[in-house]
């Protein structure tokens, strides 16, 4: 069973953009979440991250991000409600607790906790979208000229994780197929066997990397490429979001007070910022009819033209390709 956060090759601007552009775009949304506590802004960031994931085709990953984020948000809300006793709207008096002392649950503390939780929610959704849409190979290759050994280790691990997963499933099956008269296999022998097998696998994968020329010096200059229009789009979206966020801080768009009473700022600056953040969630929108292949590691300019050829391609038939 594949992880819902695993990278899935798809056609789409976010997948076609360089890892740097994708990280800048999703990172900008996360930065907003950490700059602001106003729930309106945080909800806008949550919506933008969700929209970006859905438009990028990563619905499964977005759902997984939501699940994880909601648990975290709930945890934050509960913890904050239990440890912060400020606020004028007392919802429950839970008496004296060890360590915590007198516990009074207030509506303000819950909302403050929810606000912190929203930050976690934005982060998990953005990470889920990143994980599902950004090819780890491209990230590793981008890192390779900077830190070759680290990139090699990461490449080995990224390949060995699914291989070890498959090996573990096979070993579990073999353990189930042992006759009742054979010695039982506990977790420790299985783990030892898996580890030994993984080392063999690692040697094989490393040999393949050797054969592919991984040990050669990374030729950085020739590898450098021009930014694609998708890169430009996501860098522009990131710049817009960050600029608006900073401007919003100056214009007091983060007006939010929780104690003693809740005051959520709804000034024009806040609403404008929310609108801009929401609009940034549309950045992965694919233009109707275009069907660009994303998987080339450098965004090479091979395009599949028109929906008819794309359908034929999905059906495994011939293709029309054009250089643009």
């Amino acid at each position, binding site marked *: 069973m594949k992880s819902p956060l695993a990278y899935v090759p798809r056609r789409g601007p976010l997948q076609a953009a360089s890892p740097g552009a994708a990280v800048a775009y999703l990172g900008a949304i996360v930065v907003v979440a950490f700059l602001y506590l106003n729930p309106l802004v945080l909800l806008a960031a949550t919506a933008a991250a969700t929209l970006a994931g859905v438009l990028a085709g990563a619905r499964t990953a977005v759902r997984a991000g939501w699940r994880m984020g909601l648990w975290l948000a709930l945890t934050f809300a509960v913890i904050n409600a239990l440890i912060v006793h400020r606020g004028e709207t007392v919802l429950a008096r839970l008496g004296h607790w060890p360590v915590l002392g007198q516990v009074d649950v207030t509506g303000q503390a819950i909302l403050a906790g929810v606000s912190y939780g929203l930050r976690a929610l934005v982060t998990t959704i953005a990470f889920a979208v990143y994980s599902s849409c950004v090819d780890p190979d491209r990230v590793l290759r981008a890192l390779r000229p900077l830190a070759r050994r680290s990139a090699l280790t990461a490449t080995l691990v990224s390949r060995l994780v699914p291989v070890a997963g498959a090996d573990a499933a096979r070993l579990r099956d073999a353990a189930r197929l042992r*006759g009742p008269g054979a010695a039982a296999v506990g977790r420790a022998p299985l783990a030892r066997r898996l580890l030994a097998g993984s080392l063999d696998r690692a040697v094989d994968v490393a040999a393949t990397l050797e054969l592919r020329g991984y040990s050669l010096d990374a030729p950085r200059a020739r590898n450098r490429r021009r930014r694609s229009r998708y890169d430009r789009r996501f860098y522009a979206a990131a710049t817009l979001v960050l600029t608006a966020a900073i401007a919003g801080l100056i214009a007091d768009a983060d007006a939010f007070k929780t104690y003693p009473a809740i005051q959520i700022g709804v000034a024009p600056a806040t609403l404008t910022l929310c609108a801009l953040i929401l609009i940034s969630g549309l950045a992965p929108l694919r233009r109707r009819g275009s069907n660009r292949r994303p998987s080339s590691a450098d965004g090479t300019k091979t395009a599949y033209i028109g929906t008819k050829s794309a359908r034929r391609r999905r059906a495994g038939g011939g293709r029309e390709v054009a250089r643009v």
Partner: protein
Amino acid sequence: MSELAIRRGAAPALAVQGLSYAYPRAGRRALEDVSVEVAPGEFVLLAGRSASGKSTLLKAACGLVPHFHGGEVEGEVRVAELDAIATGPGELAAAVGYLAQDPETQVVSTTVAAEIELPLEMRGDAPADRARAVEEVALALAIPHLLDRAADTLSGGELQRVALAAALVTRPRLILLDEPTSQLDPVAGDELIWLLRRLNEEWGVAVLLAEHRLERCLAVADRVVAMDAGRIAFDGAPADFLAWSHDSDPALTTPAARLFSLAGIDPLPVGVRAARQTLRGMGVAHPPNRASRRVSDPHPYVAEPVLRAKNLWVELDRGEEIHDVLKGIDLAVRPGERIALMGRNGAGKSTLLRTAAGLHEPVAGKIAVDSVALLTQNPGDYLVRERVGDELPGEQGAAALRVVGLEHALDADPRDLSGGERQRLALAIALAGRMEGEQLPSVVALDEPTRGMDRARKDDLVALIERLAGNVDFVSHSESKSTRAAVIVATHDVEFASEFAERVVLLGDGVVVADGPMAEILSGGWYFATEVARVLDLPGVVTPEQGAAALTGEESR
């Protein structure tokens, strides 16, 4: 030497001179004074039994030996004028491509396109050049539809092609292949061999192919090099190789050659086409009427079935989608039957066996079976301890070891056993406790047990299957009905199936497309037919012995 001179073929694609090599901490040398050359554009078949040094020679030719594996090396290896012992595999990658047996560890990227592009990127090619090279190699190998796929969603055959594409994308002068067809069905295996021939003819790529199933590739080879105990035992034309193997190592000969040898016909044929030409020259005509292919069942079984599947549907989750693998299988298996379960990769063979063993639950229909001992494709998965006796303690363990003939190895470390012995030990582990006294479970199932096996080991396996299925009491070695298990073997190896099976069940996309006596099924098709059946095209004639009898009978007429 100039690039142009090399391209014109002035230098050999591979030149090995006096190469001796020992792996680190190895007791004996894996290669001993090996000298061999491969000319540009030549297709050379590397033959030999298991552990004869074929894989090590291939690794030396691509630089993995000694650069990656270490060890002691003497002699000289030159690949397209590059010194392979002084130069690492990375630098050699532009001149030589290498494809190993297991495709799973040969794909290191997330997507197919990225995997094929990787060697070019490492070399520093410009993005536009890389895009074009990927496109062209994908078209050449007929995999453009796979370019956008995630590597972990590919089948074994698809992975093998992707790995081959990654090895070829740098346009190497030499491609080295280590049993690339061992995990492929007959159709995919033949496709791969003919693809190599096409690349060899149209691109001028020299090919050095190590393979056990020689009947599959002898006809396309220009030359055969046979190895024995790390040395070159033969180097010559395919026809001469057959004459040599007939005298020196019959385990390396092909079924068609054995057929001619038994029938006393010269020269020995290098393939089906040559065999047919020789027979036509002798006036042996093929039957014009293919209508009647029915062969009567030589061993009709009437006992109650020990395995019965009725309208069996099984679906599996393959990551991105739920897929119906078995689609309404009806099957009855009786005690003592020896059944070859055949079909293309992904037809559902393993799933059927795993369902019988309880690893998958049917979504519809039902399967009833008394008890099943299943040996999966990787016997090593069963071996987790460092002493055979610790794997199989007590009387039940001892009984299982007796069944597979390993009672003498009680104190051995499983890692010290030979490949065949490890496989038998894994089978004993699956059998242990499922036997009543010396009585076997009702079904013994083996999933692809001949991967990477040479002929001698296959013969041992056939003998073991015959013991399991029939007829021999393991204690007294006398005829006994009580020890009969139905043996079901999922296999792609048509020649092996003809050796052990009485019945063949052919699966196609999750349904039974043929079920009948082995001689009928394996003599009536194109791909799922033995070499002898393809040569003679006679109903029911599948083995060299049957063919020779038919030929001598015809001649006498």
